Protein backbone atom coordinates (compact mmCIF):
# COMPACT_ATOMS: atom_id res chain seq x y z
CA UNK A 1 0.00 0.00 0.00
CA UNK A 2 2.81 2.29 0.79
CA UNK A 3 4.27 1.53 -2.56
CA UNK A 4 1.09 2.24 -4.36
CA UNK A 5 1.47 5.92 -3.77
CA UNK A 6 2.14 7.99 -6.82
CA UNK A 7 5.56 9.25 -5.90
CA UNK A 8 5.75 11.59 -8.82
CA UNK A 9 2.56 13.17 -7.68
CA UNK A 10 4.05 13.68 -4.24
CA UNK A 11 7.16 15.12 -5.76
CA UNK A 12 5.18 17.44 -7.94
CA UNK A 13 3.15 18.67 -5.03
CA UNK A 14 6.26 19.13 -2.97
CA UNK A 15 7.82 21.20 -5.64
CA UNK A 16 4.67 23.26 -5.93
CA UNK A 17 4.52 23.78 -2.21
CA UNK A 18 8.13 24.79 -2.16
CA UNK A 19 7.59 27.23 -4.94
CA UNK A 20 4.51 28.70 -3.39
CA UNK A 21 6.08 29.05 0.01
CA UNK A 22 9.30 30.47 -1.28
CA UNK A 23 7.38 32.68 -3.67
CA UNK A 24 5.26 33.99 -0.89
CA UNK A 25 8.30 34.66 1.20
CA UNK A 26 10.06 36.46 -1.60
CA UNK A 27 7.01 38.46 -2.44
CA UNK A 28 6.55 39.32 1.19
CA UNK A 29 10.15 40.41 1.37
CA UNK A 30 9.74 42.62 -1.58
CA UNK A 31 6.46 43.82 -0.27
CA UNK A 32 8.35 45.35 2.62
CA UNK A 33 10.58 47.01 0.15
CA UNK A 34 7.65 48.07 -1.93
CA UNK A 35 5.90 49.41 1.08
CA UNK A 36 8.74 51.73 1.86
CA UNK A 37 9.22 52.66 -1.71
CA UNK A 38 5.55 53.37 -2.28
CA UNK A 39 5.35 55.31 0.92
CA UNK A 40 8.28 57.35 -0.19
CA UNK A 41 6.82 57.99 -3.58
CA UNK A 42 3.46 58.93 -2.22
CA UNK A 43 5.11 61.27 0.23
CA UNK A 44 7.47 62.75 -2.31
CA UNK A 45 10.47 60.99 -0.87
CA UNK A 46 13.01 58.62 -2.33
CA UNK A 47 12.73 55.51 -0.22
CA UNK A 48 15.44 52.92 0.29
CA UNK A 49 18.11 53.29 -2.28
CA UNK A 50 21.37 52.34 -0.62
CA UNK A 51 21.53 48.54 -0.66
CA UNK A 52 21.91 47.46 -4.23
CA UNK A 53 20.59 49.23 -7.26
CA UNK A 54 17.50 51.25 -6.29
CA UNK A 55 17.86 49.71 -2.87
CA UNK A 56 16.68 46.37 -4.21
CA UNK A 57 18.80 44.47 -1.74
CA UNK A 58 17.25 46.37 1.13
CA UNK A 59 14.95 43.48 2.16
CA UNK A 60 17.94 41.19 2.30
CA UNK A 61 19.76 43.65 4.46
CA UNK A 62 16.75 43.99 6.69
CA UNK A 63 16.50 40.27 6.99
CA UNK A 64 20.15 39.94 7.85
CA UNK A 65 19.86 42.69 10.38
CA UNK A 66 16.92 41.00 12.03
CA UNK A 67 18.77 37.71 12.07
CA UNK A 68 21.77 39.17 13.80
CA UNK A 69 19.91 41.22 16.33
CA UNK A 70 19.95 40.15 19.91
CA UNK A 71 17.15 37.82 20.99
CA UNK A 72 15.28 39.26 23.92
CA UNK A 73 12.78 37.11 25.73
CA UNK A 74 11.12 38.91 28.60
CA UNK A 75 11.28 37.44 32.07
CA UNK A 76 8.15 35.98 33.60
CA UNK A 77 6.75 35.08 30.26
CA UNK A 78 6.09 31.71 28.85
CA UNK A 79 9.10 31.12 26.66
CA UNK A 80 7.44 28.44 24.63
CA UNK A 81 4.40 30.56 23.87
CA UNK A 82 6.58 33.55 23.19
CA UNK A 83 8.22 31.62 20.40
CA UNK A 84 5.05 29.87 19.32
CA UNK A 85 3.29 33.16 18.64
CA UNK A 86 5.27 34.37 15.68
CA UNK A 87 5.67 30.84 14.41
CA UNK A 88 1.93 30.40 14.30
CA UNK A 89 1.45 33.74 12.67
CA UNK A 90 3.88 32.76 9.95
CA UNK A 91 2.42 29.28 9.57
CA UNK A 92 -1.16 30.39 9.16
CA UNK A 93 -0.10 33.09 6.76
CA UNK A 94 1.60 30.59 4.52
CA UNK A 95 -1.06 27.91 4.75
CA UNK A 96 -3.64 29.79 2.77
CA UNK A 97 -1.58 29.49 -0.36
CA UNK A 98 -2.42 25.83 -0.54
CA UNK A 99 -5.79 26.16 -2.17
CA UNK A 100 -5.12 29.05 -4.49
CA UNK A 101 -5.08 28.28 -8.19
CA UNK A 102 -2.02 30.07 -9.38
CA UNK A 103 -2.61 29.21 -12.93
CA UNK A 104 -4.37 26.68 -15.06
CA UNK A 105 -1.82 23.92 -15.57
CA UNK A 106 1.57 23.38 -17.08
CA UNK A 107 2.78 20.43 -19.06
CA UNK A 108 6.11 19.21 -17.92
CA UNK A 109 7.70 15.85 -18.60
CA UNK A 110 4.49 14.69 -20.16
CA UNK A 111 2.43 15.34 -17.08
CA UNK A 112 -0.34 17.82 -16.63
CA UNK A 113 0.53 19.64 -13.48
CA UNK A 114 -2.27 21.80 -12.11
CA UNK A 115 -0.91 24.94 -10.59
CA UNK A 116 -2.79 24.49 -7.37
CA UNK A 117 -1.59 22.55 -4.38
CA UNK A 118 -4.96 21.16 -3.36
CA UNK A 119 -8.34 21.64 -4.95
CA UNK A 120 -10.73 20.94 -2.12
CA UNK A 121 -14.41 21.54 -2.60
CA UNK A 122 -14.65 23.69 0.49
CA UNK A 123 -11.89 26.04 -0.59
CA UNK A 124 -13.58 29.21 0.57
CA UNK A 125 -14.22 27.71 3.95
CA UNK A 126 -10.62 26.66 4.14
CA UNK A 127 -9.61 30.24 3.63
CA UNK A 128 -11.86 31.22 6.45
CA UNK A 129 -10.53 28.54 8.68
CA UNK A 130 -6.97 29.58 8.15
CA UNK A 131 -7.72 33.25 8.45
CA UNK A 132 -9.52 32.68 11.69
CA UNK A 133 -6.55 30.79 13.00
CA UNK A 134 -4.25 33.67 12.17
CA UNK A 135 -5.37 35.51 15.23
CA UNK A 136 -3.81 32.90 17.48
CA UNK A 137 -0.33 33.97 16.53
CA UNK A 138 -1.05 37.49 17.63
CA UNK A 139 -2.95 36.55 20.75
CA UNK A 140 -0.45 34.04 22.02
CA UNK A 141 2.47 36.29 21.28
CA UNK A 142 0.85 39.23 22.92
CA UNK A 143 -0.04 37.30 26.02
CA UNK A 144 3.32 35.65 26.31
CA UNK A 145 4.99 39.04 26.24
CA UNK A 146 3.71 39.66 29.72
CA UNK A 147 3.19 43.28 28.92
CA UNK A 148 0.03 45.29 29.18
CA UNK A 149 0.43 47.11 25.92
CA UNK A 150 1.08 43.87 24.15
CA UNK A 151 -1.91 42.24 25.71
CA UNK A 152 -4.16 45.12 24.77
CA UNK A 153 -2.88 44.95 21.27
CA UNK A 154 -3.56 41.26 21.14
CA UNK A 155 -7.05 41.67 22.49
CA UNK A 156 -7.75 44.36 19.97
CA UNK A 157 -6.51 42.19 17.19
CA UNK A 158 -8.62 39.28 18.30
CA UNK A 159 -11.84 41.19 18.62
CA UNK A 160 -11.20 43.06 15.42
CA UNK A 161 -10.52 39.94 13.41
CA UNK A 162 -13.51 38.10 14.80
CA UNK A 163 -15.78 41.05 14.18
CA UNK A 164 -14.76 41.57 10.62
CA UNK A 165 -14.73 37.89 9.82
CA UNK A 166 -18.49 37.98 10.23
CA UNK A 167 -19.08 40.59 7.61
CA UNK A 168 -16.56 38.88 5.39
CA UNK A 169 -18.36 35.59 5.76
CA UNK A 170 -21.69 37.11 4.91
CA UNK A 171 -20.35 38.73 1.77
CA UNK A 172 -18.79 35.44 0.93
CA UNK A 173 -22.19 33.79 1.21
CA UNK A 174 -23.52 36.26 -1.32
CA UNK A 175 -20.66 35.35 -3.61
CA UNK A 176 -21.30 31.66 -3.12
CA UNK A 177 -24.93 32.26 -4.00
CA UNK A 178 -23.74 33.69 -7.28
CA UNK A 179 -21.19 31.03 -8.10
CA UNK A 180 -22.95 28.03 -6.64
CA UNK A 181 -19.91 26.33 -5.23
CA UNK A 182 -17.15 26.75 -2.74
CA UNK A 183 -14.14 25.58 -4.65
CA UNK A 184 -11.92 28.46 -5.60
CA UNK A 185 -10.69 26.68 -8.65
CA UNK A 186 -14.24 26.26 -9.83
CA UNK A 187 -14.95 29.88 -9.16
CA UNK A 188 -12.00 30.96 -11.20
CA UNK A 189 -12.95 28.67 -14.03
CA UNK A 190 -16.45 30.10 -14.07
CA UNK A 191 -15.09 33.58 -14.53
CA UNK A 192 -12.76 32.47 -17.26
CA UNK A 193 -14.40 33.74 -20.39
CA UNK A 194 -17.14 35.94 -19.19
CA UNK A 195 -18.18 38.16 -16.43
CA UNK A 196 -15.89 38.49 -13.51
CA UNK A 197 -17.59 38.25 -10.20
CA UNK A 198 -16.85 41.88 -9.52
CA UNK A 199 -19.56 42.74 -11.99
CA UNK A 200 -22.08 40.68 -10.08
CA UNK A 201 -20.92 41.64 -6.66
CA UNK A 202 -19.40 45.12 -6.73
CA UNK A 203 -20.89 45.97 -3.41
CA UNK A 204 -19.85 42.71 -1.87
CA UNK A 205 -16.37 43.26 -3.10
CA UNK A 206 -16.21 46.61 -1.42
CA UNK A 207 -17.17 45.06 1.89
CA UNK A 208 -14.80 42.21 1.33
CA UNK A 209 -12.03 44.63 0.61
CA UNK A 210 -12.61 46.56 3.79
CA UNK A 211 -12.74 43.36 5.77
CA UNK A 212 -9.58 42.16 4.13
CA UNK A 213 -7.86 45.29 5.35
CA UNK A 214 -9.08 44.60 8.83
CA UNK A 215 -8.14 40.96 8.71
CA UNK A 216 -4.62 41.83 7.69
CA UNK A 217 -4.33 44.40 10.47
CA UNK A 218 -3.47 46.98 7.89
CA UNK A 219 -3.96 50.67 8.32
CA UNK A 220 -6.50 52.12 8.83
CA UNK A 221 -7.28 49.09 10.95
CA UNK A 222 -3.90 48.52 12.53
CA UNK A 223 -5.21 49.08 16.01
CA UNK A 224 -3.31 46.10 17.28
CA UNK A 225 0.04 47.77 16.87
CA UNK A 226 -1.03 51.37 17.18
CA UNK A 227 2.31 52.81 18.09
CA UNK A 228 0.86 56.09 19.24
CA UNK A 229 -1.16 54.34 21.91
CA UNK A 230 0.36 50.95 22.54
CA UNK A 231 4.05 51.45 21.78
CA UNK A 232 4.23 48.56 19.38
CA UNK A 233 1.07 46.69 20.18
CA UNK A 234 1.34 42.98 20.26
CA UNK A 235 4.95 42.91 19.16
CA UNK A 236 6.25 45.47 21.59
CA UNK A 237 8.47 42.93 23.28
CA UNK A 238 9.61 41.21 20.15
CA UNK A 239 12.91 41.68 18.52
CA UNK A 240 15.13 40.00 16.00
CA UNK A 241 13.72 37.37 13.71
CA UNK A 242 10.63 36.75 15.81
CA UNK A 243 9.60 40.30 15.13
CA UNK A 244 10.58 39.62 11.56
CA UNK A 245 8.17 36.74 11.45
CA UNK A 246 5.33 38.91 12.58
CA UNK A 247 6.12 41.53 10.03
CA UNK A 248 6.58 38.94 7.35
CA UNK A 249 3.34 37.28 8.26
CA UNK A 250 1.58 40.55 7.83
CA UNK A 251 2.94 40.99 4.36
CA UNK A 252 2.23 37.42 3.42
CA UNK A 253 -1.31 37.90 4.60
CA UNK A 254 -1.56 40.96 2.46
CA UNK A 255 -0.26 39.05 -0.49
CA UNK A 256 -2.58 36.15 0.08
CA UNK A 257 -5.62 38.32 0.49
CA UNK A 258 -4.69 40.11 -2.71
CA UNK A 259 -4.52 36.77 -4.45
CA UNK A 260 -7.84 35.72 -3.01
CA UNK A 261 -9.53 38.93 -3.97
CA UNK A 262 -8.18 38.56 -7.46
CA UNK A 263 -9.32 34.98 -7.63
CA UNK A 264 -12.74 35.51 -6.21
CA UNK A 265 -13.72 38.75 -7.83
CA UNK A 266 -11.29 39.43 -10.66
CA UNK A 267 -11.12 36.15 -12.47
CA UNK A 268 -7.93 34.86 -10.93
CA UNK A 269 -5.50 34.03 -13.65
CA UNK A 270 -7.87 35.23 -16.31
CA UNK A 271 -6.26 37.92 -18.32
CA UNK A 272 -9.24 39.87 -19.52
CA UNK A 273 -12.94 39.62 -18.94
CA UNK A 274 -15.22 38.75 -21.84
CA UNK A 275 -12.28 37.36 -23.79
CA UNK A 276 -11.73 33.71 -24.45
CA UNK A 277 -7.98 33.52 -24.29
CA UNK A 278 -7.94 29.85 -25.21
CA UNK A 279 -8.88 30.83 -28.75
CA UNK A 280 -5.56 32.50 -29.16
CA UNK A 281 -4.13 29.10 -29.84
CA UNK A 282 -1.24 29.31 -27.49
CA UNK A 283 0.23 26.23 -25.87
CA UNK A 284 -0.81 25.30 -22.39
CA UNK A 285 2.45 26.37 -20.87
CA UNK A 286 2.22 29.79 -22.44
CA UNK A 287 -1.30 30.10 -21.29
CA UNK A 288 -0.19 29.20 -17.79
CA UNK A 289 2.53 31.80 -17.93
CA UNK A 290 0.15 34.44 -19.16
CA UNK A 291 -2.26 33.40 -16.48
CA UNK A 292 0.32 33.66 -13.73
CA UNK A 293 1.40 37.00 -15.06
CA UNK A 294 -2.16 38.21 -15.12
CA UNK A 295 -2.72 37.05 -11.60
CA UNK A 296 0.48 38.65 -10.47
CA UNK A 297 -0.45 41.88 -12.13
CA UNK A 298 -3.68 41.95 -10.23
CA UNK A 299 -1.87 41.04 -7.06
CA UNK A 300 0.63 43.77 -7.55
CA UNK A 301 -2.15 46.21 -8.06
CA UNK A 302 -3.84 45.12 -4.87
CA UNK A 303 -0.60 45.24 -2.97
CA UNK A 304 -0.08 48.71 -4.22
CA UNK A 305 -3.62 49.52 -3.25
CA UNK A 306 -3.00 48.26 0.24
CA UNK A 307 -0.03 50.55 0.56
CA UNK A 308 -1.74 53.40 -1.11
CA UNK A 309 -4.56 53.25 1.40
CA UNK A 310 -2.15 52.92 4.24
CA UNK A 311 -0.48 56.16 3.39
CA UNK A 312 -3.72 57.96 2.75
CA UNK A 313 -6.17 57.16 5.48
CA UNK A 314 -5.51 57.73 9.16
CA UNK A 315 -6.04 55.06 11.75
CA UNK A 316 -9.47 54.47 13.25
CA UNK A 317 -10.28 54.89 16.85
CA UNK A 318 -11.18 51.62 18.52
CA UNK A 319 -14.87 52.36 19.00
CA UNK A 320 -15.12 53.59 15.44
CA UNK A 321 -13.61 50.36 14.32
CA UNK A 322 -16.17 48.31 16.16
CA UNK A 323 -19.00 50.55 15.01
CA UNK A 324 -17.93 50.17 11.44
CA UNK A 325 -17.71 46.44 11.77
CA UNK A 326 -20.94 45.73 13.60
CA UNK A 327 -23.23 48.59 12.77
CA UNK A 328 -22.26 49.27 9.21
CA UNK A 329 -20.56 46.39 7.51
CA UNK A 330 -22.59 43.52 8.88
CA UNK A 331 -25.96 45.09 8.06
CA UNK A 332 -24.70 46.09 4.65
CA UNK A 333 -23.38 42.62 4.04
CA UNK A 334 -26.69 41.16 5.13
CA UNK A 335 -28.58 43.44 2.80
CA UNK A 336 -26.22 42.52 0.03
CA UNK A 337 -26.77 38.84 0.73
CA UNK A 338 -30.53 39.20 0.84
CA UNK A 339 -30.66 41.20 -2.36
CA UNK A 340 -28.39 38.73 -4.08
CA UNK A 341 -30.47 35.83 -2.91
CA UNK A 342 -33.66 37.53 -3.96
CA UNK A 343 -32.35 38.32 -7.40
CA UNK A 344 -31.10 34.80 -7.87
CA UNK A 345 -34.40 33.40 -6.73
CA UNK A 346 -36.20 35.70 -9.14
CA UNK A 347 -33.96 34.75 -12.04
CA UNK A 348 -34.27 31.06 -11.40
CA UNK A 349 -38.02 31.16 -11.26
Amino acid at each position, binding site marked *: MLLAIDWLFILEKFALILIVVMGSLVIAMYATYAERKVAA*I*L*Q*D*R*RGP*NRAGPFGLLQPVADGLKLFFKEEIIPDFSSKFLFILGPALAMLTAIMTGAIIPWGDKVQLFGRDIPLQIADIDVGVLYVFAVVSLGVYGIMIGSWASNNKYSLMGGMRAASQIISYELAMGITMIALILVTGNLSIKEMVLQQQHGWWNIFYQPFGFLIFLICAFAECNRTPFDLAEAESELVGGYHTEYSSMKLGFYLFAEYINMFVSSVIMSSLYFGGYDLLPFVDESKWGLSANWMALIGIAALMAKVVFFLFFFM*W*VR*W*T*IPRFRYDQLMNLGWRVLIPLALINMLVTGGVILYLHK
Partner: protein
Amino acid sequence: MQALTNRLKQVERKPMSLLERMYLPAIFKGMIITFGHMFKKRPTINYPEKTRPFSPVFRGLHILNRDEEGRENCTACGLCAVACPAEAITMEAAERKESETHLYREEKYAAKYEINMLRCIFCGLCEEACPKDAIYLSETFAPADYQRKQFIYKKEDLLIPNPITDPEGYKKAAGNRVQLNANK
Protein backbone atom coordinates in the same frame (compact mmCIF):
# COMPACT_ATOMS: atom_id res chain seq x y z
CA MET B 1 -12.55 88.93 22.52
CA GLN B 2 -10.99 90.94 19.83
CA ALA B 3 -8.91 88.74 17.64
CA LEU B 4 -5.32 89.79 17.67
CA THR B 5 -4.87 88.77 14.09
CA ASN B 6 -7.38 88.30 11.36
CA ARG B 7 -6.15 84.79 10.67
CA LEU B 8 -8.87 83.23 12.85
CA LYS B 9 -11.07 80.93 10.81
CA GLN B 10 -14.61 80.21 11.94
CA VAL B 11 -15.35 76.42 11.86
CA GLU B 12 -18.91 75.39 11.24
CA ARG B 13 -19.95 72.46 13.43
CA LYS B 14 -23.01 71.28 11.61
CA PRO B 15 -23.83 67.56 11.59
CA MET B 16 -22.55 65.70 8.61
CA SER B 17 -24.86 64.81 5.80
CA LEU B 18 -25.38 61.22 4.81
CA LEU B 19 -23.02 61.51 1.93
CA GLU B 20 -20.37 62.91 4.20
CA ARG B 21 -20.96 60.27 6.76
CA MET B 22 -20.40 57.58 4.22
CA TYR B 23 -16.85 58.89 4.04
CA LEU B 24 -16.30 57.15 0.75
CA PRO B 25 -16.16 60.31 -1.37
CA ALA B 26 -13.77 61.84 1.11
CA ILE B 27 -11.64 58.76 1.09
CA PHE B 28 -11.68 58.72 -2.66
CA LYS B 29 -10.62 62.34 -2.70
CA GLY B 30 -7.81 61.56 -0.34
CA MET B 31 -6.68 58.68 -2.44
CA ILE B 32 -6.54 60.90 -5.49
CA ILE B 33 -4.46 63.40 -3.59
CA THR B 34 -1.95 60.84 -2.45
CA PHE B 35 -1.88 59.32 -5.87
CA GLY B 36 -1.20 62.70 -7.34
CA HIS B 37 1.84 63.03 -5.17
CA MET B 38 3.45 60.19 -7.05
CA PHE B 39 4.02 62.47 -9.95
CA LYS B 40 5.28 65.46 -8.06
CA LYS B 41 8.86 66.53 -7.97
CA ARG B 42 10.62 65.18 -4.95
CA PRO B 43 12.08 67.77 -2.65
CA THR B 44 14.52 65.28 -1.15
CA ILE B 45 18.08 64.95 -2.39
CA ASN B 46 20.56 62.14 -2.12
CA TYR B 47 22.22 63.79 0.83
CA PRO B 48 25.70 62.55 1.27
CA GLU B 49 26.26 62.73 -2.40
CA LYS B 50 24.49 65.98 -2.83
CA THR B 51 24.34 68.73 -0.26
CA ARG B 52 22.52 71.92 -0.10
CA PRO B 53 24.54 75.14 0.35
CA PHE B 54 24.65 76.66 3.80
CA SER B 55 23.18 79.96 4.47
CA PRO B 56 25.79 82.70 4.76
CA VAL B 57 24.90 83.24 8.37
CA PHE B 58 25.10 79.62 9.33
CA ARG B 59 26.74 79.05 12.69
CA GLY B 60 28.43 75.71 13.03
CA LEU B 61 31.11 74.13 15.15
CA HIS B 62 33.58 76.37 16.94
CA ILE B 63 37.14 76.60 15.86
CA LEU B 64 40.03 78.26 17.58
CA ASN B 65 41.83 80.26 15.01
CA ARG B 66 45.51 80.62 14.27
CA ASP B 67 47.21 83.40 12.45
CA GLU B 68 49.10 83.01 9.21
CA GLU B 69 52.12 81.75 11.06
CA GLY B 70 50.20 79.08 12.73
CA ARG B 71 50.14 80.70 16.13
CA GLU B 72 47.07 80.51 18.27
CA ASN B 73 45.19 83.72 18.42
CA CYS B 74 43.56 83.14 21.74
CA THR B 75 44.95 85.12 24.65
CA ALA B 76 42.68 83.60 27.26
CA CYS B 77 41.06 86.87 28.07
CA GLY B 78 37.84 85.08 29.09
CA LEU B 79 35.52 87.46 27.28
CA CYS B 80 34.03 84.64 25.33
CA ALA B 81 33.29 82.71 28.50
CA VAL B 82 31.69 85.79 29.97
CA ALA B 83 29.63 86.37 26.87
CA CYS B 84 28.46 82.79 26.61
CA PRO B 85 24.82 82.66 27.71
CA ALA B 86 24.97 78.90 28.13
CA GLU B 87 28.18 79.01 30.14
CA ALA B 88 29.64 76.40 27.91
CA ILE B 89 33.18 77.76 27.77
CA THR B 90 35.89 77.28 30.33
CA MET B 91 39.52 78.07 30.03
CA GLU B 92 42.75 78.29 31.93
CA ALA B 93 45.34 80.86 31.05
CA ALA B 94 49.07 80.40 31.03
CA GLU B 95 52.02 82.66 30.38
CA ARG B 96 53.91 82.20 27.19
CA LYS B 97 57.48 81.01 27.63
CA GLU B 98 60.24 82.40 25.40
CA SER B 99 60.46 79.20 23.59
CA GLU B 100 56.78 79.21 22.76
CA THR B 101 56.50 82.39 20.74
CA HIS B 102 56.01 80.45 17.59
CA LEU B 103 53.03 78.77 19.15
CA TYR B 104 51.04 81.61 20.68
CA ARG B 105 50.57 84.97 19.26
CA GLU B 106 50.06 86.81 22.53
CA GLU B 107 51.98 86.60 25.74
CA LYS B 108 49.21 84.95 27.48
CA TYR B 109 47.54 81.98 26.07
CA ALA B 110 44.87 79.39 26.89
CA ALA B 111 46.48 76.36 28.38
CA LYS B 112 43.12 74.70 28.54
CA TYR B 113 40.11 75.66 26.46
CA GLU B 114 36.97 73.58 26.66
CA ILE B 115 33.54 74.01 25.17
CA ASN B 116 30.74 71.83 26.33
CA MET B 117 28.91 71.11 23.12
CA LEU B 118 25.94 69.77 24.98
CA ARG B 119 25.39 73.20 26.46
CA CYS B 120 26.40 75.34 23.57
CA ILE B 121 23.52 76.91 21.77
CA PHE B 122 25.53 78.16 18.81
CA CYS B 123 24.49 81.72 19.35
CA GLY B 124 27.79 83.12 18.19
CA LEU B 125 28.18 85.58 21.07
CA CYS B 126 31.63 84.20 21.79
CA GLU B 127 32.60 85.09 18.31
CA GLU B 128 31.23 88.56 18.77
CA ALA B 129 33.01 88.99 22.04
CA CYS B 130 36.43 87.83 21.00
CA PRO B 131 38.81 90.74 20.56
CA LYS B 132 41.50 88.57 19.02
CA ASP B 133 39.58 86.84 16.29
CA ALA B 134 40.44 83.67 18.12
CA ILE B 135 37.09 81.90 18.08
CA TYR B 136 34.82 81.39 15.13
CA LEU B 137 31.72 79.39 14.39
CA SER B 138 32.47 77.36 11.29
CA GLU B 139 30.16 75.65 8.78
CA THR B 140 30.44 72.16 10.15
CA PHE B 141 28.14 70.30 12.52
CA ALA B 142 29.04 68.94 15.87
CA PRO B 143 29.28 65.23 15.19
CA ALA B 144 27.34 62.71 17.18
CA ASP B 145 29.04 60.65 19.82
CA TYR B 146 28.47 57.79 22.19
CA GLN B 147 29.60 59.35 25.46
CA ARG B 148 28.79 62.58 27.10
CA LYS B 149 32.34 63.38 27.96
CA GLN B 150 33.24 63.24 24.32
CA PHE B 151 31.07 66.28 23.84
CA ILE B 152 33.36 68.38 25.97
CA TYR B 153 35.60 69.59 23.22
CA LYS B 154 39.18 70.16 24.24
CA LYS B 155 41.44 72.76 22.79
CA GLU B 156 42.98 70.10 20.59
CA ASP B 157 39.60 69.35 19.09
CA LEU B 158 38.80 72.96 18.47
CA LEU B 159 42.06 74.18 17.09
CA ILE B 160 42.17 74.74 13.41
CA PRO B 161 44.88 72.86 11.51
CA ASN B 162 48.15 74.71 11.25
CA PRO B 163 48.18 76.72 8.02
CA ILE B 164 51.91 76.15 7.67
CA THR B 165 52.11 72.44 8.13
CA ASP B 166 48.70 71.62 6.82
CA PRO B 167 47.46 74.44 4.59
CA GLU B 168 44.85 72.24 2.94
CA GLY B 169 43.29 71.28 6.20
CA TYR B 170 43.43 74.86 7.39
CA LYS B 171 41.67 76.06 4.35
CA LYS B 172 38.98 73.49 4.58
CA ALA B 173 38.38 74.05 8.24
CA ALA B 174 38.42 77.76 7.97
CA GLY B 175 35.83 77.81 5.23
CA ASN B 176 34.61 81.06 3.89
CA ARG B 177 33.91 82.78 7.04
CA VAL B 178 37.21 82.57 8.84
CA GLN B 179 38.87 83.92 5.85
CA LEU B 180 36.45 86.73 5.82
CA ASN B 181 37.01 87.45 9.43
CA ALA B 182 40.73 87.05 9.20
CA ASN B 183 40.88 89.69 6.59
CA LYS B 184 39.02 92.12 8.68
